[in-house]
């Protein structure tokens, strides 16, 4: 049980001119499942390794339960970490892999035995306790890695992309298993991933990082619905949010020849900008309107690709006078074919506006 507070953290690797992590601030509540999400090289693993004590901190502080950890060596931080490669000790069997950390902490042998067997039962490893890691499947190894963290009963769990070496089906089941375990144990968890599905489904909150900085922190759906800039808008969601430039007029924007009313933004909010980026999620474009209403604007487009995914179909559309691709997520029974013209309904209550220069969102200021 622990609160993790990170303030003004930065990291610069020796011999490198670039700052890997810059002015990183994050507070993780007791028992919270926090996901650090970002593309490769955004600094999320560096943050995790600094929390673990595996990398020295260049500037800023990391505190656990109010105690600054900067100078505390990794072995004394009482943190357990699950690695992407699992990092199981190849010369030890499963039992000894699980018991290794407890032995160092001088836990009595009977207690070690009890905790290891309990964790093994919980994770379905009871039959494999005498096997060496090389004789286990990928999923089993992953569970041993998780078990090694669980038996320690640490203050904080750290996960560094633990599911990325598993195949797709196993990843889904292990993901659910992880969520269940964390919920049962209730230990503060920081989980690093570049997979937005993992982030959306697992985290209580998501911290999105880009180029070493925090971009946005919030509950998954809150971040999904209210991205602060185009990076978050594109990074969360699959397919990502459509971003198309529109010309601003009086209380409306022009997308090609179509006028889109922008009732939620005042003149002052929009400022002197002449053009902005209009953001619309693929699921907010409709082939057939879900309900009648004046919030829906019809846009005539050409179908340039049809991607049936089974449960739904993705349409790749192009405007007549624009090369920008727009992706719409429609029902699986769509009859539209490549090359046909389609009238797609756009839900104007769900659009976002972004400043094309700063890429930041332009906030709604009218009800």
């Amino acid at each position, binding site marked *: 049980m622990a609160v993790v507070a990170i303030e003004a953290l930065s990291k610069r690797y*020796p011999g490198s001119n670039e700052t890997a992590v810059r002015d990183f601030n994050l507070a993780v509540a007791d028992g919270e499942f926090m996901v650090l999400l970002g593309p490769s090289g955004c600094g999320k693993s560096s943050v995790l*390794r600094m929390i*673990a*004590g*595996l990398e020295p901190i260049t500037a800023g502080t990391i505190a656990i339960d109010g105690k600054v950890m900067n100078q505390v*060596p*990794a*072995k*004394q931080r009482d*943190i*357990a*970490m699950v*690695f*992407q*490669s*699992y*990092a199981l*000790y*190849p*010369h030890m069997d499963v039992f000894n892999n699980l018991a*290794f*950390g407890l032995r*160092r*902490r001088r836990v009595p042998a009977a207690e070690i035995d009890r905790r290891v067997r309990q964790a093994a039962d919980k994770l379905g490893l009871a039959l494999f306790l005498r096997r060496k890691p*090389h004789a286990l499947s990928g999923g089993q190894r992953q569970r041993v890695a998780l078990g*090694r963290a669980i038996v*320690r009963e640490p203050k904080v769990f750290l996960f560094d992309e633990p599911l990325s070496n598993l195949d797709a089906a196993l990843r889904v089941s292990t993901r659910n298993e992880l969520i269940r375990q964390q919920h049962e144990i209730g230990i503060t968890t920081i989980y690093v991933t570049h997979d937005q599905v993992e982030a959306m489904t697992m985290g209580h909150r998501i911290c999105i990082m880009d180029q070493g900085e925090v971009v946005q922190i919030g509950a998954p759906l809150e971040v999904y619905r209210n991205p602060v800039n185009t990076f978050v808008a594109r990074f969360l969601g699959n397919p990502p949010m459509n971003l198309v430039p529109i010309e601003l007029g009086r209380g409306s924007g022009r997308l090609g020849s179509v006028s889109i009313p922008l009732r939620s933004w005042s003149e002052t909010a929009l400022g002197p900008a002449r053009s902005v980026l209009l953001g619309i999620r693929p699921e907010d474009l409709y082939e057939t309107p879900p309900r009648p209403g004046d919030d829906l604007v019809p846009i005539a487009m050409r179908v340039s690709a049809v991607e049936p995914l089974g449960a739904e179909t993705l349409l790749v559309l192009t405007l007549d006078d624009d090369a920008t691709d727009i992706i719409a997520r429609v029902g699986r029974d769509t009859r539209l074919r490549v090359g046909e013209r389609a009238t797609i309904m756009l839900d104007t209550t769900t659009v976002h506006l972004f400043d094309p220069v700063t890429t930041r969102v332009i906030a709604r200021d009218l009800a």
Partner: protein
Amino acid sequence: MWRRTPLILFLLLYTVVSGGPFVWVAIMSVRTTPEIFANPYALPTRFHWEKFAQAWSHSNYSTYFWNSIIVVTTAVALITVFGAMAAHCLARYRFRANRPIRFLILSGMILPPQLLILSLFQILLDYHLYNTLTGLILVYVASHLAMTVYILEGFFAQIPQDLFDAARMDGYGDFEIFWRITLPVGAPALFTTVTLNFIILWNEFLYAVVLLTEDDKRTLPLGIMHFMGSHQLDVGMVATGLMIAIAPVIVLYALFSDTMIRGMTAGAVR
């Protein structure tokens, strides 16, 4: 089947060429000299095992043998422990002098021993280590440490960093990680260097002949030379003496050749 015939023939020839002399000496070691002179290539009609006891007790062979055991096992133990420590540090830690130290160690490998022998002789004299087993042990450690560090470092560097990080998270310090992770995971490489060093040092002649002169300090290779001198015409006894000297190496190789080859060829732990 027929496609493999050339390969099998080649291996057969290779085995005869490399194993033949050994088998010949082994056969001669249980035959008497008159028997050998009568027919050098014949199989033994009677096994004269008593020749081994004779060679062992009448020719100071037991002294040579134990000297060799003491010198070689001590030297190999020291080389392995210090070599593994140095290799672990060079493979695992980023520090300023890493590359210069590595260069220094590796440059020790390219100097021929003949070049060093005079200065070593003088150094051992100055430190009163000339004509002592301790002196020879120190020379062996110094001369074979570089190659050991080189082999071990290459192997240790391939052990994934995550293993060490995991052990640190599990609460272990640098030295414990060396003992509990690097050494057991690197065991195949350690076997390789132990076997290799043992065989090389067991047969080492040049340093031993220059640095040891007293008869009761001699190691086996010197003993064999001495033995051949005093049994010039007794070919049978010479063969028996050779077999005693070769036996430990053969046993070691038979036990560890698999591990050794794996350690030399295989890469990382998976």
